[in-house]
């Protein structure tokens, strides 16, 4: 029997309806919302005023700057650590499973739970400062100094996401043909030389993939600053994601919050495009 042409659509309908309601509608509605502003509780069309407001918004630029500072330090650091760990694990013979699980474990803990634990550990008289005092280093104002607060965020994020990237690299490394390494050893290349000349080039597409994922993740960074520092001290750790949230839910400015959301979308698109151009193959 010939399948009637509409039958595939029929099977797709549930998925399409769900997509339309939970993805399509919010995407379109928030886009419309980004051109509206609230006057006396009623949303009215405001043209591009939300977008022009961005250019005079000091706090937006602070948040943008913070997000980028965190991104350009944390993402390379984390990806580098991830590759190194994966290479080490790939060489390890026994207990591979134990190491893999323990490094990956942070990635499956709840975002909020780990942020709270970190905030307790990093408190003025928390365990980390007590330890530092024991070894003779003074207490570090982890959450109260503008620079250290960013460092604390980077520390927490690296702890959580390195293992995740490591597992991806590990999987990719196991697909690199042994014969390449054999040939290199015969030619007398050292382990380090092999790592940079074989492993890293072979991993290129995977590195691109993790770099884009991490970029997207950092641009949407919210949970860590929300629980660790509330964006403070004095906006030093305010990210665009947090500013979006505050604008919408603290200040009830849903129109402007939608504008911020679309700015993040555009940033992600542009950065991903650049990364493709720089590192990707044609």
């Amino acid at each position: 029997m010939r399948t009637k042409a509409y039958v595939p659509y029929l099977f797709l309908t549930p998925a399409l309806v769900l997509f339309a309601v939970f993805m399509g509608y919010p995407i379109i509605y928030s886009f419309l919302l980004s051109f509206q502003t609230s006057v006396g509780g009623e949303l009215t069309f405001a043209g591009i005023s939300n977008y022009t407001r961005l250019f005079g918004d000091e706090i937006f630029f602070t948040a943008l700057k913070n997000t980028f500072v965190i991104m350009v330090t944390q993402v390379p650091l984390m990806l580098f650590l991830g590759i190194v760990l994966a290479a080490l694990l790939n060489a390890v013979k026994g207990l591979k499973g134990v190491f893999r699980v323990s490094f990956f474990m942070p990635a499956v803990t709840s975002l909020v739970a780990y942020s709270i634990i970190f905030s307790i550990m990093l408190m003025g008289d928390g365990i980390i400062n007590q330890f530092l005092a024991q070894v003779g280093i003074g207490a570090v104002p982890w959450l109260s100094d503008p620079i250290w607060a960013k460092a604390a965020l980077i520390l927490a994020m690296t702890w959580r996401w390195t293992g995740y990237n490591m597992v991806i690299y590990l999987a990719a490394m196991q697909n690199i043909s042994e014969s390449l390494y054999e040939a290199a050893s015969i030619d007398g290349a050292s382990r380090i030389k092999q790592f940079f000349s074989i492993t890293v080039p072979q991993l290129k597409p995977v590195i691109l993939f993790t770099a884009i994922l991490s970029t997207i993740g950092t641009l949407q960074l919210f949970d860590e600053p929300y629980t660790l520092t509330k964006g403070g001290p004095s906006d030093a750790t305010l990210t665009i994601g947090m500013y979006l949230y505050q604008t919408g839910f603290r200040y009830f400015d849903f129109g402007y919050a939608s504008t911020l959301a679309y700015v993040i979308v555009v940033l992600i698109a542009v950065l991903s495009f650049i990364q493709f151009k720089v590192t990707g193959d044609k």
Partner: protein
Amino acid sequence: MFKVSKLLVLLLGITIAISACGQANEKKGEAGADQKVQLTAWAWNVNVGALNSALELYKKDHPNVDLKVEDIGRLDVYDKLSTGLAAGGAGLPDIVLVEDDRIQGYLDAFPKGFLNLSDKGFDSKADQFPAFKKELASKDGKFYAFPFDAGPTGMFYRRDIFEKAGVNPDTIETWDQFIEAGKTIKQKTGSFALPADKFKDDALFRMMMNEQGVFYFDKDGNIDFNNPKVVKALETIKAMGDAGLVKDVNGWDGTVSATVDGSVATIPFGAWYYGTITDQAKDTSGKWGVFQLPAFEAGGNRAANLGGSSWMIPSSSKNADAAYAFAEYFATTDAVQEIAMDKHGLFPSLQSVYSSKLFTSDVAFFGNQKIWQLFSDEMKNIPTPYYTKDYALGLDEAVKAQADAFNGKNPADALKEAAKRLADRTKRTVNNG
């Protein structure tokens, strides 16, 4: 052609089925006088207990009314409430607790979001509440919130720590004297003078402003950060920090654990903190006392308010009448308010309760001090703080100014910069000091 129309019919069918479900649900809610009514409420902390206690009393005359109280964290209530209101009232409860400082912001952002209580007849009950509370619960002369608790402030202090340090709390009348006493206490006992969430909250700063009759905004809604009294408050806080008297705590939990473990000698807070102390530090009974906030100059005003909340009914409530009846009973019944205070430490704003025996008796937990009398005497001297609809923005900038001050900036400069940023964000005028 035929195929497409068949698909359309199918989709139409689904749509009708979904909307029919929706209607069926809506009908269920409309209950007659004899039918059972199931109300829901969102609240946090000790307020949950107060609601449940009130329900027990209420059920004696209204056996058909039932109330499901959802205990949700304070900030989570606001997030859920904001989301629900923005979604046109979807998923909201019948009764929700809102802090006084947030009411105006909600009413401005969602003018149709809450039940107009004046239309339901609340005006006749309004005179039972103090003026500042009425102002906070209404907009354009109409009530939108049932006044509940208030937060007359005091310094909750540990008698044992003060005694060990040889400091008599009665001698502390000004903040300067408090700082001196704090130094002695720190030296002799190792306890900090008070806790503060230095970089994330500004509770002490707000109390100090309110005490002096100033706030983020003046009564005309202008930004008042440059007012010398505001500057003085922040300078005093910074001076305490510089002297090593402020314990930096992380949020509410940090404050509570500092209270319990005795690492601070005093906690300046609203009267409602009684409930938390008696609940969390049960084994310190008898070791507590209260004195009023120190003044900025000898003989100055020592009355202030921190916190306090009210009940609101989202207009999406399907049981608005039942919810109104219950909330009004809650807000205006002496017995309920007495229980709320006696059992849960929530200080009522219903004035008729102040003359009750409860208010004039000793409190054993507080070393037999008449603390409720102290708080109720304070009520009449509390200046009205002008929260305005931009309170959340003002708070954000005030916290930043405080963080800057703790990180070394001159308080006056920090406030000046905060005022400028706040003016950019709210389009309000800045008063020059």
